[in-house]
């Protein structure tokens, strides 16, 4: 079965190469394809010629997109495979790449993981296909995540997660708590709530790497810097990180956050019954609340993310993913055509209709998008707040080229601050040390 489809792919590739010359359908085994420019006409010709591509993604809205794409291009077959959600898919992808076998043509990759795959030439540089021209289409946070250096583009943003504060208005009203505008007010609100109802917590946080890095991002901390892909710096001692750590330490010290892991059953139950009263999280959350905490429909509202400085206007991205082309994938022109269709072309609207949150500025600013009323949020036009947040994201944040690993050891190190007397700042330092150690072992120059 596998051998069969690979053979098929190979023969299709051969036909393409004969028909179009090596540029459109080049075999990527030769290493770099960054030098080759591929024109729009080449891509169109490949679409006409047809073929088969394999797409690894867990994003549910892509199903409809793939169907539409095949309808428009009858000769193209898209195999949409769910190879696992985030870390599980990365494991499969890394294994496929190192085995040089069964690598998909397109893979969904979250922003924080792009660096890891872009490095060591795991991903095709899409600038050869003219992806660089699409820069203006995307909001700054996601775009900064997919580009590397001055003109390399390793993926096209699929969705984004500008952060906002989701809060349970019913609980807030019941205890007469005001929506916090700053994180200091947030701590105050946490105290007031927990005092009024010892079973209720302002939020749940059992230590989550994505959440912590996002708040650091918002606080102005830039713990990671990567130069030339191999020179890496990890430093959690800047002003932003100190501010974050001292504020969050108060919540931990006074047991004001519920020690419940995100996405667990307890988490959804708490969101539903009001014992977890707020969630500072990405704008892709509404669909999850609607399905996971149905009973609280109408109770929740959305507010801008609390600020670190009174009157400030800063935000951060939390999660979000892109579609990229692993270099060992075969059908590059078709793969690019699909990525462009899904993330920049007609597919975007299809996915928005199904509840995805866009990374494209045009959609973020369109009046139909912004004026959408969410019944779950009591008819609130929540997208206005999300769109504003997206515009406030600073675009100079960088992840490590081994962020997937770094995140995997977050709870080994920073987790100590959640379950023992270890201070958050010291815990961050031990995360830093462990990341540095791994970086060195992997041949990076680490400072």
């Amino acid at each position, binding site marked *: 079965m596998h051998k069969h489809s690979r053979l098929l792919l190979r023969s299709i590739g051969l036909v393409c190469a004969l028909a179009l010359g090596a540029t459109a359908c080049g075999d990527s085994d030769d290493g770099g394809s960054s030098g080759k420019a591929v024109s729009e006409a080449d891509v169109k010709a490949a679409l006409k010629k047809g073929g088969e591509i394999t797409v690894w993604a867990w994003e549910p809205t892509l199903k409809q997109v793939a169907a539409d794409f095949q309808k428009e291009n009858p000769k193209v077959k898209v195999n949409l495979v769910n190879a696992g959600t985030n870390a599980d898919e990365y494991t499969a992808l890394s294994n496929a790449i*190192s085995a040089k076998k069964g690598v998909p043509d397109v893979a969904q990759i979250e922003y924080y993981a792009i660096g890891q795959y872009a*490095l060591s030439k795991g991903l095709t540089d899409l600038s050869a296909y003219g992806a660089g021209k699409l820069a203006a289409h995307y909001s700054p946070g996601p775009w900064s995540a997919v580009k590397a250096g001055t003109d390399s583009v390793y993926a096209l943003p699929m969705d984004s997660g500008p952060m906002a504060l989701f809060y349970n208005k019913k609980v807030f009203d019941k205890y007469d708590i005001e929506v916090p505008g700053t994180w200091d007010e947030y701590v105050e609100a946490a105290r007031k709530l927990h005092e009024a109802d010892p079973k209720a917590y302002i939020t749940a946080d059992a230590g989550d790497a994505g959440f912590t890095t996002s708040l650091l991002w918002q606080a102005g901390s830039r713990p990671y810097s990567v130069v030339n892909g191999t020179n890496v710096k990890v430093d959690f001692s800047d002003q932003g990180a100190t501010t974050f750590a001292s504020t969050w330490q108060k919540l931990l010290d006074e047991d004001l956050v519920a020690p419940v*892991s995100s996405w667990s059953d307890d988490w959804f139950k708490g969101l539903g019954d009001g014992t977890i009263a707020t969630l500072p999280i990405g704008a892709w959350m509404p669909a999850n609340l609607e399905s996971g905490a149905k009973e609280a429909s109408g109770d929740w509202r959305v507010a801008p993310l609390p600020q670190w400085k009174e009157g400030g206007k800063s935000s951060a991205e939390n999660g979000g993913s892109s579609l990229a082309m692993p270099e060992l994938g075969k059908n590059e022109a078709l793969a690019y055509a699909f990525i462009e269709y899904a993330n920049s072309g007609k597919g975007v609207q299809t996915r928005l209709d199904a509840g995805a949150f866009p990374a494209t500025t045009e959609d973020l600013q369109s009046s139909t998008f912004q004026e959408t009323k969410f019944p779950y949020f009591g008819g609130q036009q929540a997208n206005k707040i999300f769109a504003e947040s997206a515009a406030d994201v600073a675009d100079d944040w960088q992840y490590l080229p081994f962020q997937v690993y770094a995140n*995997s*050891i977050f709870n080994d190190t920073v987790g100590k601050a959640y*379950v023992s007397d270890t201070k958050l700042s010291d815990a961050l330092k031990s995360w830093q040390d462990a990341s540095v150690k791994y970086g060195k072992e*992997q*041949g*990076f120059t680490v400072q």
Partner: protein
Amino acid sequence: MTTLHPPAATRSRPVPPEARRDRRSWTGWGFLGPFVAVFALVFLAPIVYAIYLSLFREQLIGGNTFVGLDNYQQALRDDRFWAALGRVSLFLVVQVPVMLCLALLVALALDSGRLYGRDFFRVSIFLPYAVPAVVATLMWSFMYGTRYGLVGDINDALGVSLPDPLSADLMLASIGNIVTWEFIGYNMLIFYAALRVIPDSLYEAAQIDGAGQWRIITAIKLPAIRGALVIATIFSIIGSFQLFNEPSIMRPLARNAITTDYTPNFYTYSLSFNGQQQNYSAAVAIIMGLITMVIAYVVQLRGTRKGV
């Protein structure tokens, strides 16, 4: 007769052995071949490949290089590995005796013949072993929940506050409880089977000698099943050192308590799948395998020596 005999023997000797040796080497291999092939492929090849892997180091920057025994050196100085080994050793020292004693008690009770509803009792003790470890762990995790689980319900109903079984301090004990629950039935069955084959004549003799039940247990039953005890202990030692399923399944509920280096097996898994350090992971796995072998062997030696 006597003078003729030796020369005949010496004459006949030189020829056949060569022919026989020749024939033996071919037919022997013919019979042995299929086994050797399967054995080499299934048992030796993976071990050899793991050893081969452990001599290299693949880096994100710099690619794959031969590093000799560097990975082993690193593993021997790796605090995370030794901490993991310490944790499973503690688990071994506490959980295994508890589990085996309970299993032995149950087996003796079943064997005593004085139990009402013996078959039902036997099946219900054995049942947990038939439940897949994944399901068992998930089930216990739900019960352990202090917010919505059984522990939480007990807290609410009785107005007490039980300690959180999923906290960092109690996690090892909680896992031990699950493992004990799962494997009592299995060990009980091993002991019970060994008890059943003790000849009745021994009991009759004991009765004639006027031995009580306690005396029968210490003088007949326990010595007779020493072999089974040793086997069960060795299985349990290996099982403890290979602890993986339970922590791996419970981790999403308590990431801070179950670190990625919680047990040696879980550590090799994390090294290999989170950090792409397959080479180092292979070295750690081989060291762990050797340690397990040595300890299991020592236990076996001691066990059989006592038996003599």
